[in-house]
């Protein structure tokens, strides 16, 4: 199962990247498919936990730099067919059949999808309709690299915590935080593709998600969210004169962090009460 988990992880990110590259109605289809693959990932993970098989979130590099979308779609199709082949050895036949059915449908749709010219790697570092100073462009570029990785990291951490917790109250909070990070990742990834600097977030180190002290993790996390708010504020100020629209977007992201902090404080209180009551 470990190999299927790794390949599904890779296929999920590859499909997400294809979504960022598309300029047509295929974009939403690719995003929906990447969501499906993420759910497959969580199902396989749960099956591994249930069977006591050890696993981690390591994966291989995912080459995405293509000139035409069809090249990436072919690579994704190849990866999906490889997963499908490996599902033959799954003990949980219901799970294998569910995933296999989804894969067969997705492969069919990908095969029929129209080709597009990919402009996500040109490094122009310009957003359509927005003129920024060199300083603001650099600040935005660094922000997008830092934060797209951070959102991926948060998705993986909260997903891992959720997979290893049977506390419904906490799991509700973790799921909201996963969903919020997905939204941010999609926003930032889309912006990176438009600027010609699309990149797959790097693999995260085990010690980040294999959290030993949840209380310390949540406390650190609240401080990190506060720092992220500060970064959004700085960026909004940096681009404010050149693009009020972009400034409003970063103010919106900044305000969303308040909700994340409130959720994390809620989780912290719940966890501390739980620990006190044994």
């Amino acid at each position, binding site marked *: 199962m470990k190999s299927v988990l790794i390949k599904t992880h890779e296929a999920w990110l590859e499909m997400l990247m294809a979504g960022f590259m598309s300029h047509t109605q295929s974009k939403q289809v690719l995003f929906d498919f990447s969501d499906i693959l993420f759910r497959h990932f969580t199902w396989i993970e749960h099956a591994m936990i249930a069977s006591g098989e050890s696993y981690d979130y*390591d994966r*291989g*590099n995912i080459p995405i*730099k293509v000139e035409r979308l069809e090249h990436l779609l072919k690579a994704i199709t190849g990866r999906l067919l490889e997963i499908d082949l490996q599902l033959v050895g799954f003990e949980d036949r219901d799970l294998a059949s569910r995933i296999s059915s989804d894969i067969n449908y997705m492969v069919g749709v990908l095969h029929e999808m129209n080709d597009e010219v990919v402009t996500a*790697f040109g*490094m122009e*570092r310009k957003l359509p309709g927005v003129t920024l100073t060199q300083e603001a462009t*650099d600040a935005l*570029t*660094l922000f997008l*690299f*830092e934060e797209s990785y951070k959102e991926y990291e948060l998705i993986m951490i909260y997903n891992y915590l959720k997979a290893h917790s049977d506390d419904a109250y906490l799991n509700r909070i973790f799921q909201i935080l996963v969903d919020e990070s997905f939204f941010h990742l999609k926003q930032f990834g889309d912006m990176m593709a438009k600027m010609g*600097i*699309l*990149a797959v977030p*790097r*693999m995260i*180190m085990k*010690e*980040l998600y294999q959290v030993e002290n949840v209380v310390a993790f949540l406390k650190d996390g609240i401080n990190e969210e506060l720092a992220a708010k500060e970064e959004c504020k700085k960026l909004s100020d940096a681009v404010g004169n050149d693009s009020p629209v972009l400034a409003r977007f970063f103010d919106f992201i900044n305000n969303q962090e308040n909700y994340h902090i409130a959720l994390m404080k809620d989780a912290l209180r719940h966890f501390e009460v739980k620990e006190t009551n044994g």
Partner: protein
Amino acid sequence: MSLDNMVMEHMMNPKNYGTLASANAEGMGKNPLNGEKVAIYIHVKEDEEKPYIDDIAFQAIGCTTTIVAGSMLTEEAKGLTLDGARNLVEATMKLLEKLPEEDAACSEMVALGIKAAVDTYEKRKEDREYPMITYQIEGTCTPKEEEEA
């Protein structure tokens, strides 16, 4: 960090990022002030007259500058003998002396990680179970004005 196309290329496609299943030594460069760290994995080819690093990888908990420095320095280190790798670390540290502390800290962490991996390799020649060596950086990557705030 000046974002020219070469730096952008390292940001978008960091070289040698990840772990190395065949590694025969690891090292860690660490910033004790903020918990940022760089793990370096090396495979030293031993059946040569002069052993050399024939493969290298890194992972980091750190900022984009750390990733760019890791990508560049591991590329430089690939193919070097152990003395060559030590010279690379020394030359990098000398170069970093000319930079402001907050700009130098990330690259220093990578350089010390490489040094730690090479030293771990040497120690393991005498004791195969020798634990991974960690070196801590002396600078800080926090800009002065943030420290004062």
